[in-house]
C-alpha cells in the first residue's frame, strides 16, 4: 500500500547501562512519532531509558546467500578464541 507509513527499526537501552538492543519494528509517519510510538509499544513495562529509531530502509544488511564466504572461514580459526592461554591469577578479570 502506497499510503502506509514507513517502517522503523527500534532500539532500546535497558536499565543497566547496556548498549541499545534491537527490540522490533513499527510504523510511523516521521522520526518523532516513531520515538513516541516506540515509547508506547516497547517501554510500557519500564523496559528502557533511551530509544533509538532508524528507518528500516537505511539499514544495509548482509545477504543470506553469502553466508558461506562471509562466515564459514572463521569457523576453522578457533585460535581466535583466547581459551588456550593460562592467565596468571594476579591479572584478575580480563
Amino acid at each position, binding site marked *: 500500500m502506497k499510503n502506509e507509513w514507513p517502517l522503523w527499526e527500534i532500539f532500546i537501552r535497558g536499565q543497566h547501562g547496556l548498549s541499545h538492543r534491537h527490540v522490533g519494528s513499527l510504523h510511523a*509517519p516521521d522520526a518523532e512519532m516513531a520515538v*513516541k510510538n516506540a515509547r*508506547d*509499544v516497547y517501554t510500557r513495562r519500564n523496559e528502557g531509558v533511551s530509544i533509538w529509531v532508524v528507518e528500516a530502509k537505511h539499514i544495509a544488511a548482509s545477504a543470506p546467500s553469502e553466508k558461506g564466504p562471509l562466515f564459514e572461514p572463521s569457523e576453522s580459526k578457533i585460535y581466535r578464541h583466547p581459551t588456550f592461554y593460562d592467565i596468571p591469577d594476579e591479572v584478575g578479570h580480563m
Partner: protein
Amino acid sequence: MTRDEALFEFLLRMGDNTLILGHRVSEWCGHSPVLEEDIALANTALDMIGQTQLWLGLAGEVEGKGRTADNLAFLRDAWDFRNVLMVELPNGDFGQTLMRQFLYDAWSFVMTDWLKGSADERIAAIAEKAHKEVTYHLERSGDTVIGLGDGTEESHRRMQAALDYLYPYCGEMFEKDKADELLAEAGIAPDPAELRAEYDDIVGRVLAEATLAIPGGDYVHKGGRNGRMHTEHLGHLLTSMQWLQRAYPGAAW
C-alpha cells in the same frame, strides 16, 4: 459550604474528568486505525484511570462516609457526576477523539502544573505524578493534531470540523463557583479562570501550526462540572461502564 465540602466537589470534578475521558478513550481499544495508535490510546486511557483512582480515592477520604474510589466510580448515577461535558461526548472519528484529547490535555497540563504547588500536600502529590503523564499526553495529542490538521485535504477538513464542534465546550473548564472560590482563597486549587491565558497560549500555538482556525462566537456548553445538566450521552456511557457492578454487586477479580 465547608472547606471539606468544597474539596470533595473539586476532587469529584478532577476524578470524574479522568474517569469519563479514560473510559471514552478505552472504547478505541482494538478499533484504532493502526496498531501503534491503538496501543498509545490504551496507554493514555490507563494513565487517566490511574489518576482517577487517586482523585476519587482522596474524594472518598475527604467525604468521610466510607466510600472508596470504586464506589464513587461505579455506584453513582449521572446527576452526581461532575465532569465537564466535553469528556462525555461520543468519540466521533479518530480525528475528533484526538482533537478532544488535545483540548483536554492542554487544560489538564496547566491545571496539574498549578496543583503541584497546592497548599494541600495530598493534592500536590497526586498532581506531581499526574503532571508527568499529562505532559506526554499533551505532546502526543498536540503532534497528532498538527499532523492531521496540516495533513491531507481530508484530514484537515475533519480536524477543522472537530474543532468547530468541540471548541464551544472548552469554556466550561474555566467556569467558577463557590467551591472554586473557597479553595482558591485557601491556596488549595486555582481560580479556574486564571488558567485561561496559559491554556490559550498552548492551544493557539498548536492550532496555528496545524493550520486550523479557532471558531468565533463565545457560546459555552456547560452544566457538567456543577452537575446541573449532563448530555444524554453520559447515561449511555455509565450503562456500559457500570453494568458489571450493578448486575453483580461487589464482584471482584
